[in-house]
């Protein structure tokens, strides 16, 4: 993560790393495509390895946030690569498919792994996707919501297809991110210090001063 403040005006620019996790075919790539390009495709190719995308949003008149997004492949065997994505992520969206009960179990195991292995300040959002297929729902909203709140996660039901709640999801994450911390990565990187690393792993006092 990097936050830079334009000294002449009061505009802020921050960069955050976000990772999408969840079982294959729950709609991770579709959610990103909706968020980044406002498009949807009934026929998406499955993701091999991972895809990297960026999207910049204006949080308010004075704050611009750039998400650097890793869209990962959902198949189980790619799981061993996951630490590479989430270790330095500031936020994660864990996706399940509301029409597939088993996909929520998978999502829960991702949440557990993130809570154990990732940055302790990582913001995790749980997204129940394919909300447009409400008629085929297998996961009740209340149950998922209860799980999310007891685990301290943001929670949204989304539809990449209709676009419902997609922007809301990413905006909610942006609002939770610690804007007042750290400094520009560009300035510090050449010295070999990476402030984009998770707080817990960074040298003491680097970015613990969250004021939000």
């Amino acid at each position, binding site marked *: 993560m990097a936050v830079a403040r334009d000294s002449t005006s009061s505009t802020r620019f921050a960069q955050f790393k976000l990772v999408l996790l969840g079982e294959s075919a729950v709609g991770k790539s579709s959610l990103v495509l909706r968020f980044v390009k406002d498009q949807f495709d*009934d026929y998406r*190719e499955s993701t091999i390895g*991972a*895809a990297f995308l*960026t999207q910049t949003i204006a949080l308010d008149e004075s704050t611009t946030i750039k998400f650097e997004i890793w869209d990962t492949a959902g198949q189980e065997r790619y799981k061993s690569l996951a630490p590479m994505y989430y270790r330095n992520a500031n936020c994660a969206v864990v996706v399940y498919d509301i029409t597939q009960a088993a*996909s929520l179990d998978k999502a829960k195991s991702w949440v557990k792994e993130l809570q154990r292995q990732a940055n302790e300040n990582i913001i995790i959002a749980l997204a129940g996707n394919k909300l447009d297929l409400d008629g085929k729902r297998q996961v009740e909203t209340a149950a998922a919501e209860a799980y999310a709140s007891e685990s301290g996660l943001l929670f949204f039901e989304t539809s990449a297809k209709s676009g419902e709640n997609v922007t809301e999801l990413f905006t909610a994450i942006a609002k939770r991110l610690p804007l007042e911390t750290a400094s520009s990565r560009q300035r510090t990187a*050449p010295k070999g210090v990476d402030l984009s*690393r998770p707080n817990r792993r960074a040298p003491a006092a680097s970015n613990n001063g969250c004021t939000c």
Partner: protein
Amino acid sequence: MQQQFFLERNHPTFQPGSFASVNRPLLPHTASAVSISHFINNGNSNGSANARDMYGFRKQSQYITASEYDKWFASYEKYMHRRRRKWEALIRDSGIEFGEDGVPLAFPRKSKLVKRYVRKGIPVDWRGAAWFWYAKGPEYLKKNPGLYERLWTRGMSSPPVDSELIERDLHRTFPDNIHFRNTDQPPVNSGSPATTPGSTKSSGSNSRRNSAAPETRIVQSLRRVLYAFSLYVPKTGYCQSLNFLAGLLLLFMEEEKAFWMLVIITQKYLPGVHEINLEGANIDQGVLMMCVRESLPIVWNKIGAGIDGYLRDDMVVRLPPITLCTAAWFMSGFIGVLPIETVVRVWDCFFYEDSKVFFRIALTIFKLSERQIESVRDPMETFQIVQTTPKQLLDASSVIQSCFRRHNGFGHISQEEIDNRRRFVADRRRHVGVMTSSDILADELDSQLPSSSLPGHTSGRQKRFAGIASSGFESRKAAEDRIQMLRMGSMNMLSLNARNDYFSPPSSSRSVSGASSPAV
């Protein structure tokens, strides 16, 4: 065959079932260049967003417009004709007969000349036969008569464990190719949540629900090939990306041959790459990173740093994040990475010359991105460049040329070299594996200890650096000591060079000099 092909492409009410045999390849077998050009030009109206190339893919992509495609293809087509005439002469001079479908019954023995011909492109309608020939497919087929059919029959009656994953991906394989999804038929109930009846499993795939259009013949072949493969090679089973490999093969050859090619690719050309732990993929990425460091120091300076910002010598164990992109290049044979004509030209060389071709193509992509990579400040932008550059490489011939150009810096990477490095990396990863797992332990420990309670608290990796430098630090907890011991034990296996490199800042040139490169 050719007639049917036109029917399929141009007839508005084409039904996949209209093909009598499931065992014919989709591309027509024609005897002369004239009819090839006929079939090419018979594509859809030029310039439209839905215009198809000769393989049935959309000409247009996010990175290439249909008119750019047409402009390139106008001259490429002439080139293809020229090459085809040369090939015909070569086959005749080699005393090889043509089958009635116009495809040579065999291919010339390997030689400098033939290698050059292959690099310049195999005629499109001979391609499948040539791939199969040079990959030694006929031997596999001869040794295992009837096996493929037995396998898929078994798979259909009792689906393999991976069948659900396969089903989920069948309709996510080349949805933009007319042979995989016939878009001439508007989806009947798109948007309605009705389930397609008769699906073997109710998978999570939504595409199934939306695909009211009947499954195309090639999708059915793809199912059989993937089912049969996962039964035949259980230690790989089904790995996402095999669908693309098999899918492209099916455009060029009958399904039994496509099945054997999949076996050959995963066992001979890319061993272990698709296996459950993906270790083969990790090994190849380690080899690739060694090659980048050696041949493209400017690129290495940008991509070689780990997430901690340090360039490191243990990159074959702790792969840099860029390998998250490049691993997929190998797994899917550059499908979806390079434009399709470039992919098939790469595959021409790959089946003839073996896996070194993939490494050299990967290096070529880095080389072609070098300027841009050098100019970015934000390391994250590098990912974007590395991801988008290959998608624009429409001019297949010039990609191949820059790959095999003399003095491009990686001409020395022979297959023997690749195989040696694969062994070296595999070994090293095995030895250091204990360190990797102890690191994970250390990280877990990190998360259990509140950082405020440890004044000098440092990360797992920093502790390791410290450990190397000062042979340890104050014991805090028994568990931590145990981890440290593990770590020190495994550290001894790393070379001195590696130690030095742990402390190299990203801009250091030392880590790219030959002196610290692992001896191979």
